[in-house]
C-alpha cells in the first residue's frame, strides 16, 4: 500500500517508541500504540490525531536530534495530522484550501463583507444603515428578518453536513466500524476527555509548551476558548429559540440570557485567543512543524475578531455605528463557519473522533 512520507516517518518513530515506551504515561497515543505491533496507514492517521501536540515526549526523548535516531514525535505527528486534514476533507476539490489558508481567509472575508454590505446598502440605503436604531427589532431595520434567519440557517446546515461528512471519512479511513461508532460508553469517555482537556494535563504537570518547562497555561487558555466558544454558540441558538418560539425580538436586553451568555463567552475568547497567540510567539520551534503556523494563527485571529466585533456590537448597538458593526460581526461569523471545515477547526472533529476510537479500543482491550 502506498504511504506518504509523513506516514512513513510516523511509522518509523512509532516503531522506536513501541520498543521503548518510556513516555506511556503522557498521553493516549502510547497506550494506543502498545495495542499494536505494526502500524498500517490507517493506524498512523488515527494516532496522529490522537496526539494533541503537548510536546512532553519531545523533551523527554533521549533520541531527539542531534541523536542519530532523530526522533521528533510532535513534529512528525503534526505533519501527518495536517495531511489527514487535507485527505479527509470534503468536497475533495476544496483540499487546496488547507494549503492556501491565509489566502482563503482573506478572500472569504472580502467576499462576505462585500456581499453583506452590498446587499444592505442596496436594499436599505445609506440613511438606514448609518443611522441610529434602538429598541425592539432594531437589527431588522438593517437586515430583514427573513434574511437574518435563512442565511445563517443555510450556512449552519451546510457546515453541519460537511463536518458530518468529514467525521465519517475519518472514521472509515482509520478503520473504524459502525458498532464502534455506536459505542455510547466510548462517546461518554471521549466527551469527558474533551470537557476536561484531559490530555493537555500531560502526566499531571501540563504541556511542555511553549518551551521546555511544564505548564498548564496552554490548557487553561484552551479552556477559555473552548468554553467561550460554547457559550457564544449556546447564546446564538438560544436567541434563535427566543425569536422563533417565544416570539421575542432581538436585540435582547442586556440582562437577558442570550446576551449574558454571549458576553461572557466573548470576553473569555479574547484573552484565550490572545494568550494562545502570545504563546506561539514564544514557541520553541524544534518540535513544531512550520507547515500549519499560518493556519493556526489565522484561526485564532478570526475567532478573536468574531468575539471582538460581537462585543463592540453590544456596546455600540444604540449608536449610528450599529449598522456597520452588525455587518462586520456577521461577516466574521459567516467567514468563521464557512471556512471552519477547511482550517484549524477540523482538529476538533478529528480529535474527538480519535478519542472515541481510543476509548472504544481501550474498552475492548480490557474485556
Amino acid at each position, binding site marked *: 500500500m502506498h504511504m506518504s512520507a509523513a506516514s512513513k516517518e510516523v511509522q518509523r518513530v512509532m516503531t522506536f517508541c513501541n*520498543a*521503548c515506551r*518510556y*513516555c506511556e504515561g503522557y498521553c493516549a497515543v502510547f497506550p494506543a500504540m502498545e495495542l499494536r*505491533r505494526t502500524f498500517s496507514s490507517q493506524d498512523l492517521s488515527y494516532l496522529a490525531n490522537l496526539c494533541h501536540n503537548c510536546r512532553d*515526549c519531545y*523533551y*523527554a526523548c*533521549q533520541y531527539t536530534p542531534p541523536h542519530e535516531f532523530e526522533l521528533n514525535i510532535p513534529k512528525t505527528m503534526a505533519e501527518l495530522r495536517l495531511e489527514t486534514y487535507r485527505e479527509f476533507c470534503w468536497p475533495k476539490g476544496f483540499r487546496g484550501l488547507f494549503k492556501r489558508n491565509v489566502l482563503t481567509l482573506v478572500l472569504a472575508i472580502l467576499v462576505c463583507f462585500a456581499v453583506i454590505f452590498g446587499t444592505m446598502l442596496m436594499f436599505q440605503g445609506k440613511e438606514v444603515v448609518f443611522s441610529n436604531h434602538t429598541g425592539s427589532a432594531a437589527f431588522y431595520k438593517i437586515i430583514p428578518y427573513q434574511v437574518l434567519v435563512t442565511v445563517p440557517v443555510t450556512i449552519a446546515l451546510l457546515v453541519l453536513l460537511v463536518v458530518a461528512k468529514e467525521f465519517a471519512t475519518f472514521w472509515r479511513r482509520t478503520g473504524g466500524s459502525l458498532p464502534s461508532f455506536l459505542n455510547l460508553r466510548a462517546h461518554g469517555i471521549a466527551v469527558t476527555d474533551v470537557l476536561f482537556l484531559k490530555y493537555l494535563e500531560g502526566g499531571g504537570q501540563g504541556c511542555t509548551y511553549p518551551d521546555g*518547562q511544564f505548564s498548564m497555561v496552554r490548557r487553561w487558555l484552551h479552556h477559555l476558548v473552548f468554553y467561550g466558544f460554547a457559550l457564544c454558540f449556546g447564546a446564538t441558538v438560544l436567541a434563535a429559540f427566543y425569536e422563533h418560539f417565544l416570539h421575542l425580538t432581538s436585540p435582547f436586553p442586556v440582562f437577558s440570557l442570550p446576551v449574558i451568555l454571549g458576553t461572557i463567552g466573548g470576553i473569555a475568547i479574547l484573552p484565550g485567543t490572545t494568550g494562545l497567540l502570545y504563546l506561539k510567539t514564544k514557541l520553541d520551534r524544534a518540535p513544531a512543524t512550520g507547515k500549519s503556523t499560518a493556519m493556526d494563527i489565522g484561526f485564532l485571529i478570526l475567532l478573536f475578531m468574531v468575539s471582538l466585533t460581537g462585543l463592540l456590537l453590544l456596546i455600540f448597538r444604540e449608536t449610528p455605528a450599529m449598522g456597520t458593526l452588525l455587518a462586520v460581526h456577521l461577516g466574521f461569523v459567516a467567514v468563521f463557519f464557512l471556512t471552519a471545515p477547511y482550517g484549524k477547526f477540523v482538529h476538533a472533529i478529528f480529535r474527538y473522533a480519535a478519542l472515541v476510537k481510543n476509548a472504544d479500543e481501550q474498552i475492548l482491550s480490557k474485556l
Partner: protein
Amino acid sequence: MKSNRNQNAGKVFDVLVIGGGNAALCAAMTARESGASVMLLEGAPIHFRGGNSRHTRNLRYAHDKGNGHLTGPYLEDEFYNDLLQVTEGKTDERLARHTIRQSKDIGLWMERHGCRFQPSMRGTLHLDRTNAFFLGGGKALMNAYYSQAEKMGVNISYESDVYDLEIKDGRFVAARVKVSHSDRRIAAKSVVVASGGFQADIKWLKKYWGDAADNFIVRGTPYDKGRMLKVLLDKGAEPVGDPKQCHAVAIDARSPRFDGGIVTRLDCVPFGITVNKHGHRFYDEGEHFWPKRYAIWGRLVARQEDQIAYSIIDSKSLELFMPSVFPPIEAESIQELAGKLSLSPSMLEKTVADFNASVKGGSFDAGALDDCLTVGLEPPKSHWARTIDRPPFYGYPLRPGITFTYLGVRVNDKSRVMMQNGNLSANMFAAGEIMSGNILGKGYMAGFGMTIGTVFGRIAGKEAARHAHERSL
C-alpha cells in the same frame, strides 16, 4: 553561561561536582541545599547531558507500604536478599544495608526535586512493587533535576571535560578542565566525583577483552570514558570491583556504536534457538526467564567468534516478546534465512533439524518455567522449546551491548574516597557508577544503579558541603 564563567574565574567553590548524571545532580542539589556554593562540570554538551542516567527507566527503593506509584511494601530484608542473589554474595553487607536503609522513601525526596513517577497501574514490567518508574524516563528526570539545580543556584557548565585532578597528600586542590578549547583550572574546597564508569573507552576495554572489544556496542553515553576513575586510581585511590568485568547484555547487532539505549534490546532469545556464525548453538536459551538471564548473554556472545550470534524463531513466537526496533530478517525457509544472515545453509538446517528432533512436546507457557524441553541435545534447552517449523522464519543478529563496568574507587559509608595507604581522603567524595562496585560486586538488579547514585549522591553532596563549611570556619 558565558557571563557566569567570567564571574566565576579564579573563584574557589565550596563544592565541585564532576559529572552530570543522576549521582552528580543529587550531590549538587544536596550540597547547595546545605548552603555550599556549587559548580557542576558536565563533559557532554547540553543536548546529551545526563550520562547513562538519561537512558534509565526506573529505580528501586525501600518502602514500608505501597503508594501512588508502587503497588506494595518492599522492606530492607527482602531488598537485601534480592541483592545477595544477583551478586551471589559479592557485596559488602554493611555498605549494602546502609544503601538500602538510606534509600527508604527517597521517592519523596526525588519528587520534591522535580521527579515525576508514573502511576503504578500502568507498569509494563513486573516490577511495579519494587521499582518506581520515571514518567517520561531518565531524560525527563534529568531535565527536572537540571532545572531544579539551576533554580537553586548551582553553577552548571556543559562541554566541560575534566582531564586531570590536582591532588596533594590525598587532598583535592583543583580540577583541570577543557571548556570549549580553552584550558581552565577550577579550585574547590571539596570535590564529588560522579563521572560514571569507563565503558565508553574501547581502548581500556581492550586491555581485558582484546580485539573482541572492537565489536562491543556501548548502550549508553559515549562520554563515560572513565578519565576521572583513572586519574583517581593513578593518584592513590583504592580500587574496588573486578576490573575485567562489565555488565553486558545481548542486543540487536544493528544498533549504533554508542547511545542506542533501551530500544536496542531484544527479548526473543528464550523463544527460539541462538547460533553463532558457524550455525552452532552454544548455550541453553531457555535456562530461565529472560530478565534473569539476559545479562549473561552479553558475555556469551562476546565469547563467540566475531562476537556475533543470531536468534532464530518461527512465526509461532513472533508476538511473544516486546516489539523490536529493527525488523526481524524474514525468510520462507531455513535455507533462505541462512543465506540472508550469511550463515552456512546446510549447517543451519542441520542445527534446526537436530533441535526439532529433540524437542519433547509439553504445554507451552511463555509466562512460566514450562515443561517444553529438549532431550538428548547438547547444550539443552530447558524451557519453551518448541519446534522451529512454521514459516515465515525470523532472525535477529545479536552483539554484546555493554551497560557499565564494575571497577571503581573504594568509599566508606560517607561516600569518602579511600586511599591506597588506608586513609580516607579529606575532601574527595565519589558517588554513582564510579563507586557502585563497593556494593555491586557482580551481576545487576534492575533499578539499583539509580538507587546507588541517588543515595550516595545525596550523602556525598551533604558531606562535601559539610567539609567545605568546616574549612571556612
